[in-house]
């Protein structure tokens, strides 16, 4: 089994290397944008940096972490060897090759188009080909996850798939659906333009296809955090999962409602009518359901733990939770950030209300809180939880781990709360510098400096995180392997096929996607919009 551990570690180290690098350049960007960094760096350098930050965080950290974590879950939750290990390694190397191909044009300034592309701007074709390879590799991972679950079900007829694996496969299935949009955009529109085969591009169609991917991709990143909430946090706290069914429902709801909602990223776009926007906003409102179910179920699970440890009264159980354990601490901090991020989110999805905040720092604050905050802090907690098992070594003390989690939380709050405020004032996104001589912008200056301080705290936390993991590789050998996954209060004995597989849900996703994206995409085929001239950045 050493091979499976090496496989996981190989993925995680690529992910965390990209993460550390992205944190460093992210902090640099905040300096450039602040009043302290006037005339630092050219726009070329700045947008190169933004592109690298986005690609590292959104594509490399997430994809490699999720693949590595998926392999870990498939082996440990199913308690059987990973099928197709050679394929898994092949996928790893293909993804790594993709990263290298993507990084070279970014570093040479030939791909300063940000990680969200913005056609008709086009980068060097290698930038896109590299990203396609990363996605293709992740498809291999999806298939391996599906095979692992199917084989296990065949060996264990009638038994419920362990929740951690069920959720991982839900994520794999969702990811296959998710990537269709961006894959079509890249293969049929952007790559031909980047290669010079075509001179114009239908921008409305490109934006629509990208929006297909743009929301669900965030849930792809998020699901590992939710797996930790449901399967690891209750055990770490010394309790049980309040409801296994709730967990299954949550992941199913993520699968069906994360996809037909991407157009809420296009609310301010002119190429779609109000009606289709409204339909997707209504579906977006239902994306809140799985998160609200999770908040309740996990809080109840922690309450079980707290009361078992002697907590009394309505809130007494909170104090008696073992907050010294990184997983419990991270879960608590993650929930706080999820609350603030959710607040920002319901304003974003507010149909007309989106006009108040679209493309302002409010949005940047929202996704940094949700992804960078509540999700990435759970990536930390997962890494801390499974690193001893991967390396066979034990922490000498948990102090630095807790410090790191606290620093991340504080840094994230200090960085993003001012961004919300600035966003409401109209501070816009994606600029290399502000004209602080303007009276409106001058008033923002102090808050920009505060958020920059938050960025520095985050960078310190990121360095400490990698140092903590690296230190473990030289720590004493692990004594006892503690169990990782929580039991449910009522462990599921039989579950309906609907909660044990994805056939029904795939059909419903198809129905929803046809209803939500059928006409919005078809309109570009019925009446193609006038093409825009391709602008090549290189």
């Amino acid at each position, binding site marked *: 089994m050493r091979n499976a551990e090496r496989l996981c570690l190989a993925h995680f180290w690529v992910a965390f290397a990209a993460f550390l690098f992205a944190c460093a350049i992210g902090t640099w960007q905040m300096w450039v944008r602040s009043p302290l960094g006037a*005339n630092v760096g050219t726009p070329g350098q700045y947008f190169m940096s933004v592109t690298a930050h986005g690609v590292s965080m959104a594509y490399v950290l997430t994809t490699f972490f999720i693949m590595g974590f998926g392999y870990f879950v498939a082996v440990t939750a199913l308690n059987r060897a990973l099928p197709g290990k050679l394929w898994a390694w092949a996928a790893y190397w293909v993804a790594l090759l993709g990263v290298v191909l993507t990084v070279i044009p970014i570093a040479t300034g030939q791909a300063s188009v940000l990680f969200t592309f913005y056609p008709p701007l086009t980068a060097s074709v290698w930038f896109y080909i590299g990203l396609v390879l990363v996605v293709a590799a992740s498809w291999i991972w999806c298939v391996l996850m599906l095979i692992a679950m199917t084989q296990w079900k065949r060996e264990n007829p009638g038994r419920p798939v362990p929740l951690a694996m069920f959720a991982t496969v839900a994520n794999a299935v969702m990811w296959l659906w998710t990537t269709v949009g961006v894959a079509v955009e890249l293969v049929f529109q952007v790559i031909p333009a980047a290669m010079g085969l075509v001179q114009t591009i239908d921008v409305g169609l490109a934006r629509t296809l990208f929006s297909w991917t743009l929301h669900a991709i965030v849930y792809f990143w998020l699901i590992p955090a939710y797996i930790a909430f449901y399967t690891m946090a209750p055990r770490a706290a010394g309790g049980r999962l309040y409801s296994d069914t709730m967990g299954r429902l949550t992941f199913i709801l993520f699968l069906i409602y994360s996809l037909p909602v991407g157009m809420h990223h296009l609310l301010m776009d002119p190429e779609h*009518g109000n009606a289709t926007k409204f*339909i997707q906003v209504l*579906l977006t409102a*239902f994306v809140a359901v799985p998160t609200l179910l999770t908040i309740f179920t996990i809080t109840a699970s922690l309450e079980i733990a707290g009361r078992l440890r002697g907590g009394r009264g309505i809130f007494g159980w909170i104090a008696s939770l073992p907050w010294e354990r990184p997983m419990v601490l991270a879960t608590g901090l993650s929930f706080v950030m999820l609350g603030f991020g959710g607040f920002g989110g319901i304003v974003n999805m507010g149909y007309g209300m989106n006009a108040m905040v679209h493309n302002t720092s409010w949005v940047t604050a929202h996704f940094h809180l949700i992804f960078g905050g509540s999700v990435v802090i759970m990536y930390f907690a997962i890494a801390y939880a499974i690193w001893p098992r991967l390396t066979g070594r034990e922490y000498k003390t948990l102090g630095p781990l807790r410090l790191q989690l606290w620093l991340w939380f504080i840094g994230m709050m200090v960085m993003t709360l001012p961004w919300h405020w600035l966003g409401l004032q109209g501070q816009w996104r994606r600029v290399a510098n502000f004209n602080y001589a303007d009276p409106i912008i001058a008033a923002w200056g102090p808050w920009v400096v505060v958020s920059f301080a938050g960025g520095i705290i985050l960078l310190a936390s990121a360095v400490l995180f990698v140092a903590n993991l690296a230190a473990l590789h030289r720590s004493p050998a692990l004594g006892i392997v503690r169990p990782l996954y929580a039991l449910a209060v009522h*462990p599921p004995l039989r*579950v*309906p096929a609907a909660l044990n597989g994805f056939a*029904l849900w795939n059909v419903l996703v198809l129905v929803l996607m046809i209803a939500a994206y059928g006409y919005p995409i078809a309109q570009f085929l019925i009446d193609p919009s006038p093409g825009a001239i391709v602008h090549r950045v290189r």
Partner: protein
Amino acid sequence: MPDITPRPSEPHVLDQPWRMWSSVAVVGILLSGILLGVLVIPIVQGRSVGIDAYTAICRALGILPGSPAQPQSPTPLPGIPVSQVTWTSDLLQILARADVRRGHAKVQEVCVACHGEKGESIGVEFPHLAGQSGAAIYKQLFDYRTGSRAHPMMTDVAKALDEAAIADVAAYYAGQPQRNPNLVTMAESPPAIVQLVELGDPKRNIAPCSSCHRAGAGGPIETPVLAEQRAEYIVQQLKLYASGKRRNDVYARMRTIAAQLTDEEIRGLAFYYRAGFR
């Protein structure tokens, strides 16, 4: 210790209500969304401003332009173009596939006297054309030809060329070795000029010169590349833009910027981009 001994499920009995109710819920949510978004909201909003239901629904779906909640009064206005060049897909393909040999012949016939066979101009008032963007050369020749830009010599020269010849000439000069940023003049330029080129001037709302005029910057398609260019030519053209005597820059992209530059800055920029030392 809980009993976790597995027992086989009875899929049909257990599964049927799940199948049914989840489908009902999802389809119900979807239908209510369609009902509200396509019918109720546009009809109610349209009624409040006197737009009939059919028009309101068509606007909501995006079949007709406009908002279902606002009267739409399109006012077609006549317009006078500052340049008649239209960058179509076909034109860009023609430029990409233009005949360089024919272009060379044409250059030797009409251009060589001032701009040189390889695009190295023979006098300070003539721009170097070697390695210049083909689209930029095409745009200027076309504008001379249609009168959007005027020059005592170039107007007649361009009028004698047809569109295909313009494309050939543009492609030929574009294919000559590219001129590179002149590191010496860049190093000798005062910081304020370097800043204008690299960072622009936020206080005056001037974007960096390099965000369009560097090769491969991804700016407007017709933007000329500035590198090792005749300083005198740059000064002259910036002044023409500033005074509004030259106005074939689509949407006044250069007129607005040039009008804000001081004479000293114009000279500084010309020095920064000047040719020499090869």
